[in-house]
Structures are given as C-alpha cells and as structure tokens.
C-alpha cells in the first residue's frame, strides 16, 4: 500500500519540471534524486513486506509454541520447547557419529531414510510415468488397468509390507517396496489424466503434419503432460516421505523412522519431538524444491 504514493511523488516533479522537453527530462532527474529518499522507499517497501509476509506466520509460530509450553506444563512427561531446543542443539552438534548399527548420528539416519525414499520413489517413477503415458494414450490399456488400479490404490501402504518381507526375505528391500507401491499411483494417475487432457487441437496438428509416434511423444505429448506429471511426482514424493517413518519403524535399520522407535524405547521424548520436526522440515523442503522445478515447466 505504501508503494503507490511513493512512486507518485517520484513521478509528479518530472512532468511538472519541464513540459517542453519531457523526453529529455527523466534521465538527469533520476541521477539527481537524493539517495536518502530511495533508501526510505526501500525501507518502506521492506516494512510493508514484513507486515504482509513475516508477521502472520511468526504469530502462528508463537501461538504454537505457547500452546506447546502450556501442554508441557500440565503433562510432566512431555518436554517443553526450551528443553527440546537444548536437546536439539546437542543432537545436531555431532550429526555424523557412528557407534555401530544401532547408534548413529541423526545425519546418518536422515540420509538413510532419504536413500530409501529415493530408491523406492525412483523405481516408482521409472515404471509409473511410462505406464501413465501408455494408459492415457491407449484407451484399451486404460480400461484394462482401471479396475486393478482403483482396487489397489486405496490400500494402506503398510499392508504391502508383509508381501515385501515374504518376497524379498529382507527388511531393506521390503521397505523400498512399500515406498514404491504406495508412491507409484499418483504418478500413474496424474500422467494418464494429463495425456487425456492434451488439447485436441495439438493432436490434430500432429495428425495434419502426420508426425511419427516418436515425434508425437517428444514434441506434443511429453511437453503437454509435463505439468501434470510434475504434480504426480510431487504427490508421490509426499506420500513416500509420509510412509518412510512407519515403514522403518517396522523394518528397523538405520533411518529416521527406526530412530524414533529406538528413542521411544529409551523414553527419550525430546528426540521423538525433534524427529517430528525433522521429518516435517525435510518434507517441506522436498515439496518446495519440486514446486520450483515444476514452475520451470509451465508455459
């Protein structure tokens, strides 16, 4: 709101100064403009941005911390924000220590979880995206797979774990399997929907130009579907990160999920709370990174 009057003030003297040669006037005027005024303008703009963007979230955070403190006050088992903070500082002062498989730094735990998510999600993308393209392109395949997809998609991710353990006989691939099977659906479905939403005009162009199936894919389908695909990828990564904690709790090994379970057994509640924040923050960062990536593919 403060910006508009400031620019007005800057503009009016220019047009008033010399009506005869308005074309030549602005350049020297800009040069002579006092630096202090420019500085105030940017300060005003900064203040404006502050009230607009920083104050409300900050207020929310304060309310949240107050509520948490209050809760901690009345339930002695639950550590308050201050106690948790001190514990976090200590924990993150040495994130990469290694005292054997059951006692590793938080950094290692996070990295191992990310690795599992990356593998499970990567495999899901490798299979899910091409599958989505084919389902969207060939209606026969769509009708063929529709009942299976709608049957399997709503199944809780962890219900797949026993199957994984049975087939792979090992915890690590079973966890990756759970991530794979639960994160594949958003990519399949969004990609397929994207293909069916490609404007008929573009496909008519392809037909009039008599493009080969490869050219249709690379020049029309793929770019047209990319935004939908990116939405699918974002949802998939979200699901994968959501599921990893639960999967690791059950399968064990180094990872943020098993770490939570371990700390629960040690009754180290501060660490559990820290883990919740860590999971939340990493999920947020992944989401933002993918949003930024997706924005590059908009036309």
């Amino acid at each position, binding site marked *: 709101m403060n910006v508009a009057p400031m620019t007005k003030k800057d503009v009016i003297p220019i047009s008033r100064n010399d009506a005869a040669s308005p074309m030549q006037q602005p350049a020297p005027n800009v040069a002579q403009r006092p630096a202090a005024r420019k500085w105030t303008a940017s300060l005003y703009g900064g203040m404006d941005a502050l009230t607009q963007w920083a104050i409300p979230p900050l207020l929310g955070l304060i309310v949240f911390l107050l509520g948490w403190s209050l809760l901690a006050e009345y339930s002695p088992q639950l550590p308050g924000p201050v106690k948790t903070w001190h514990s976090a500082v200590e924990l993150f002062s040495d994130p990469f220590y290694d005292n054997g498989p059951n006692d590793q730094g938080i950094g290692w735990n996070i990295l191992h979880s990310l690795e599992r998510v990356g593998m499970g999600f990567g495999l899901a993308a490798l299979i899910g995206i091409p599958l989505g393209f084919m389902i969207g392109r060939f209606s026969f395949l769509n009708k063929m797979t529709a009942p299976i997809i709608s049957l399997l998609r709503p199944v809780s991710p962890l219900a797949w774990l026993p199957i994984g353990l049975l087939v792979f006989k090992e915890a690590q691939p079973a966890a990756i399997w759970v991530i794979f099977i639960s994160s594949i659906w958003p990519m399949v479905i969004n990609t397929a929907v994207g293909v069916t939403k490609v404007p008929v*005009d573009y496909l*008519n162009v392809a*037909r*009039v*130009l008599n493009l080969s199936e490869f050219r249709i894919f690379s020049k029309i389908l793929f770019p047209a579907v990319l935004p939908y695909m990116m939405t699918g990828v974002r949802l998939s990564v979200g699901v994968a990160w959501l599921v990893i904690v639960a999967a690791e709790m059950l399968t064990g090994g180094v990872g943020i999920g098993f770490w939570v379970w371990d700390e629960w057994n040690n009754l180290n509640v501060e660490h559990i709370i820290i883990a919740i924040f860590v999971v939340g923050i990493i999920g947020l960062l992944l989401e933002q990174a993918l949003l930024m990536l997706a924005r590059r593919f908009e036309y």
Partner: protein
Amino acid sequence: MHKKFIQLENVERVFVTRQGTYTAITDINLAIQQGEFVSIIGHSGCGKSTLLNLVAGLTPASGGIMLCNGREITGPGPDRGVVFQNHSLLPWLTCFGNVYLAVERVFGRTEKKSRLRERTEQVLDLVGLKEAQHKYPHEISGGMKQRVGTARALSMQPKVLLLDEPFGALDALTRALLQDELMRIVAASGCTVMMVTHDVDEAVLLSDRVVMMTNGPAATIGQVLQIALPRPRNRLALAEDARYASLRSEVLKFLYQRHAKHAA
C-alpha cells in the same frame, strides 16, 4: 488449371451424440479446380468447420465420396495444409520450432538439416516473421500467431490449403493486412484454397467462388456465387466497383434474407 482437384459427392456427416444422432451436413456436392480459391460462408454452427475437417481428413464422412487429386480422402495428408481456427501453435516451441516440425516431417528424409533450416527461415520470411522467429507463441501478437500458423501450413508446400476462419480473431486492420498477404502468397504458390469464413467482404475479396451454406441441422450448399473479378485485386479500387457491390449484396441477401438466422 481446369482440373477438378477436390471432388465432393453427396457428402454427409452425422454426429452420434447422447441425445441421438445429429446430421450436421448432408448432400454436399462440390468440385474445386486446381488453383481455385473457394470460400465457405454460412451462419455460425451451420457446419463449415465440419466440412473443412472432412476435407482435411481429420474426421471421417458418414456418407458420400470425397476425392483429392483423384484419390479418396481417408485421413490427413501432407498434400493438404491446414490453418486452424485458433492457430494451434505448440506453446513450448518457438515460431521457428513450430514451423520446423512441419518442414522436418515433409522434407526430413530427403534433405540435409541445413536445407531444412533454410526452408523454415524462408517461409517465416514469406509471412514477415523473420525477426520474431525465435520468440515463443505467448510472446507474439494474435496476428503474428496466425501468420506462424499459415507459415506452418505453407512450409509443407501443400497442393491444397485449408483455412478455418484464419483471421476470425483479429482486428480489422490486421485482418486486411493478412488478407492481402494471403492473396499474394496464394498467387505465388498457385495452390488450391478452401477457406471457411463468416466475413462477407473477405469472401468476396479473396475468392473465385463463394459457397453459401444453409442453416443446420442437415445444412447443405444453398448457392454458389462466381466472383469473376480480375486479379490481382485491390481492396481500395474494389470498394468503389459496382460489380463488387452487387456480388457483396448477393451474399448478404442469401445470409440475411433467404437464410436468416433467427435469435433462439
């Protein structure tokens, strides 16, 4: 010059909809000679695009015979270039890229890359877009987009140019400019043109014949008007030409008297 290039006999197009069948156009009989410029005019929704899409091969006919250069039309082909009603440029390709896609398809097997690029630049130059060739569709004006669409169709060196209201979305000044340009290009290339329009002046100015369609459902050709004005045509000179005025009023009478469309 007097060869029948496009031949339509008893052509019909029926749409199957949820409410039952809908006969859009029926009993269409039309022969277009090589190098001829034919306009299709009629009220909105009468089936002009439907007819053009049939000739383009984008939709199959429900009945009748359609021939292009003696062969039956069964699908789209590089002998028929189409300029779409809404330009239909691919937004992720530059103007150059959009045209190159067509050039590559038609000449890519027989010619080198450098020659393909040369062709693309030539045709963009022809429509006056050499400077803007590396811009994306969202960075250029509506008139420029329509020019790229025309360039794309021309680049395939089609024998037939099919235009669906190519200048429908443009302002009057740009429209006049592009009409003159189209006349020049068509005269130079000698291709056969079938153009859908709802602009009476455009139809009379550009065409050798104006095909007037009755209203739907089951629309058909109501009257065909020969435009025997000499070429090259000049819009300013024609504006005061008595023959032009009488041809123009002939089309107007068809559209607004005999086959007037009443507001529903």
